[in-house]
């Protein structure tokens, strides 16, 4: 009966209906209704997101979805950001580009995160995709500005080039001049990560001048302050602007042209950059402050009073990134000025100092949470915390979706009671029912995991460090957190039992990272043997794990589900546990 209904619509109608369904989850659901829907859907899927590039092979993707126009891939585990993943681990995008070059000649968008991209890849992209529009390389590495020059020279329809946080070998600014004079399609350029002192200012100015659709422009540090006015003057339509260096000896004519340039940018909503700030130049941005919704001052090393002066001009602020120079007093001022605040990130200015260099404590965060009801996303580095503060935060900000707290010294107890912070984080997960991402720190026992397992039903990503007492902690999380996709753990006393008892759970998750824990090599082998759809990879730079007894703990463990089987591009310090490993004599 149902089959009849499904077949009564011609394919084209169904396809048209499906075109309104954009989310991956919905698309996946659609494809599972019946065989014919599966077929129709796969031919009209245009956008693919692959959260782990090793979960599937390029060929499998191409076989199922022959007409893709946009692809997003993620490579290395998140902890690679903190140098926990040794160089050479993997995440190479070349095999993907190579396959797609033939299969998707009309590919328009490539978005990569934590992948290794070479100049060869970039040249291949430039050559293979005639209608290429969007290239986002987020925290990638392995390429140079020569590769960018190839993209610039060939991609006549390029709209977006975003290199945020990537590690680029910057050979100088000449790559910009490879954009032909006839090229005018640029909408978004983020080259803020480029590190060379050289930049071709004239090429930049000409490019900005002729690309009248430019909305986002984030410059790199090499662009001096006195050039900003010129650049902004050519692009008053900008919505998102990142300065280069924002410091120089104060000169009134430079200041006034800067202020004038900013005031003519009526659409400006987001500012960033501000390296090497000279406070005297900050008032130049006051004309745009009242409309700003996003402000990234996380490289601004100025004192709290100057920061507060600036923030008082920004009542519409929704997103603020700042260094802990803002201090508790500054955050209090923020909370009274910026009632619409949704996201706050406070970074440490002196993370390795033994003593605090600024007066920033849990109070700052509490005052923001008390006054800003719309707060959803928090990243906060501080040196002390209390359960009482966490409970206050939880009760006043039930809408939190992302909460990442980093108390700088591992295993720091509640400074008031000297107890673990279990109750405080327990309150967070209990009250913030939509919490999707959580990072823990401080002194924590197995109890906090009990709370997490019990309450954090929407939690998708959990980061744990220096916490817990026994396998029970891990067991609570794996058995309780229904929505868990990514779990990353370091330096916790979690061993084999919880892992093996919850092996099936791992197939419902994207990945699990465990480093400096107590999982034995034997357990890894067992897991690899019993769970063919999991790739169990042991990372150990000190030598082959089978040269030691099975009971020895592995250094680092990365487990992820995959339909592609074990990968073949592993470096010498990564071992995969497959079906045969448990049978090998060690």
């Amino acid at each position, binding site marked *: 009966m149902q089959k009849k209904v499904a077949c009564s619509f011609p394919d084209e109608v169904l396809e048209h209906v499906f075109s309104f369904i954009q989310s991956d989850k919905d698309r996946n659901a659609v494809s599972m209704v019946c065989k014919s829907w599966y077929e129709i859907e796969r031919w009209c899927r245009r956008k693919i997101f692959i959260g782990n590039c090793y979960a599937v092979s390029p060929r499998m993707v191409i076989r199922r979805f022959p007409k893709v126009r946009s692809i997003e891939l993620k490579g290395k585990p998140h*902890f690679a*950001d*903190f*140098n*926990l993943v040794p*160089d*050479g681990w993997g995440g190479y995008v070349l095999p993907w580009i190579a396959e797609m070059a033939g299969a998707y000649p009309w590919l328009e968008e490539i978005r990569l995160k934590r992948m290794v991209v070479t100049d060869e890849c970039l040249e291949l992209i430039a050559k293979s995709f005639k209608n290429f529009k969007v290239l986002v390389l987020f*925290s990638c590495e392995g390429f140079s500005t020569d590769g960018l020059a190839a993209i610039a020279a060939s991609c006549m329809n390029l709209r977006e080039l975003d290199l945020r*946080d990537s*590690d680029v070998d910057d050979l100088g600014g000449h790559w910009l001049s490879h954009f032909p004079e006839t090229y005018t399609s640029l909408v978004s350029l983020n080259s803020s*990560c480029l590190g060379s002192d050289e930049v071709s200012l004239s090429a930049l100015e000409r490019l900005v001048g002729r690309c009248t659709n430019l909305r986002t422009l984030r410059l790199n*540090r090499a662009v001096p302050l006195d050039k900003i006015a010129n650049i902004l003057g050519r692009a008053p339509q900008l919505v998102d602007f990142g300065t280069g*260096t924002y*410091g*120089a*000896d104060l000169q009134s004519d430079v200041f006034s042209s800067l202020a004038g340039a900013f005031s003519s940018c009526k659409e400006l909503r987001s500012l960033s950059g501000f*390296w*090497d700030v*000279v*406070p005297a130049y900050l008032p130049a941005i006051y004309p745009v402050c009242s409309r700003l919704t996003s402000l990234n001052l*996380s*490289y601004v*090393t*100025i*004192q709290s009073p*100057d920061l507060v002066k600036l923030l008082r001009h920004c009542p519409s602020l929704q997103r603020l990134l700042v260094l802990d120079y803002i201090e508790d007093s500054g955050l209090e001022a923020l909370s009274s000025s910026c009632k619409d605040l949704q996201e706050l990130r406070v*970074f*440490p200015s*002196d*993370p*390795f*100092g*033994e003593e605090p*260099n600024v007066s920033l404590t849990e109070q700052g965060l509490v005052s923001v949470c008390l006054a800003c009801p719309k707060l959803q996303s928090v990243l906060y*580095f501080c040196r002390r915390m209390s359960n009482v503060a966490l409970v206050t935060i939880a009760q006043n900000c039930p809408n939190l979706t992302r909460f990442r707290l*980093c108390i*700088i*010294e*591992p*295993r720091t107890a509640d400074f008031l009671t000297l107890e673990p912070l279990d109750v405080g984080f327990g309150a967070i997960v209990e009250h913030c029912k939509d919490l999707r991402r959580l*990072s823990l720190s401080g002194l924590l026992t197995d109890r906090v995991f009990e709370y997490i397992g019990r309450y954090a039903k929407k939690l998708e990503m959990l980061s744990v*460090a220096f916490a817990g007492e026994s396998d029970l902690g891990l067991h609570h999380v794996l058995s309780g957190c229904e929505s868990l996709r990514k779990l990353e753990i370091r*330096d*916790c*006393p979690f*061993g084999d039992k919880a892992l093996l008892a919850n092996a099936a759970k791992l197939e419902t998750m994207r990945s699990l990272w465990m*480093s*400096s824990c*107590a999982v034995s090599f034997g357990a890894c082998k067992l897991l690899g043997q019993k769970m063919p759809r999991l790739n169990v990879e042991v990372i*150990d*730079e*000190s*030598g*082959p794990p089978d040269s030691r007894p099975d009971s*020895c*703990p592995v*250094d680092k463990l990365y487990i992820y589900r995959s339909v592609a089987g074990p990968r073949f591009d592993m*470096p*010498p*310090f990564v071992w995969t546990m497959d079906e045969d490993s448990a049978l090998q004599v060690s």
Partner: protein
Amino acid sequence: MEGGLVLLGGGVGGGGGSSRFPANESAVAKVEVVSEVTELELGLSLGGPTGKAKATPGRILTAKDFSSVVVPHRASINGGYPPSVAVSGTKRAADDGGSPTVISQVVGWPPIGAYRMNSLVNQAKAPRAEENKGTNEANNPKKAGSTLKQSDEKSGHIGYTKVNMDGIGIGRKLDLNAHSSYESLAQALEDMFLRSGGAEKEQLTMASKLFDGSSEFVLTYEDKEGDWMLVGDVPWVMFLTSVRRLRVMKTSEANGLGKIFLFDIRSEIAREERTAKKQADIASPAFTIHR
């Protein structure tokens, strides 16, 4: 095959435990590893030999002969159980001017993205920042400049330094902040390039040539002016503030840098701050300086 990177053999920096040098033996340093680090001790103290492995006479002193007891860069020492020493222990290190704080020795903690860390470094070193210190002194007293101050006074380096070895395709990264001395660096490099599991025989041979002092390779670094220098010429702390990246270079290519690839231990010790006495005892005719 014993090997260690042939570098400055000047002894242990602000590491914990003590290194003892026998009064009479030449070219040999024996090290006593103290397992419980309760206080970080400076440098060398001399005394009788203890049970550690003894270098064969005439062999060049290498990193292996010194054991840096400063907490190793991996937080897990004993199977992943809370590293008792690494973090919560020694907070108040002896003020030796060259010893990094304990936190900085835990890899990847605090969890600050590598990109941001590198920016912190660049910010601290940027000439503009230094220029502006003058104009901003009223506004930016030590607090705002503390990143800069931190980098000058403490370990001098935040973030990771790239290391490449000639002949090995994959470059690596190293946290110099986790080391307090050249020996410690040498050991880390040894571990990195020699012991990356499954190392090909070829790789081992290459590395052994480096590390046993037959001098096919030297360790060099690019400083902030872009010049390539031999590692070991300057005191450790100064090295940290100027190093941009490292390269284990074939000696044949290092000619322009001068032919010094073994270092005069005497002069190095004289330069480093030490509380130990009898530095002259370390000097030995077995060391040669090739010029």
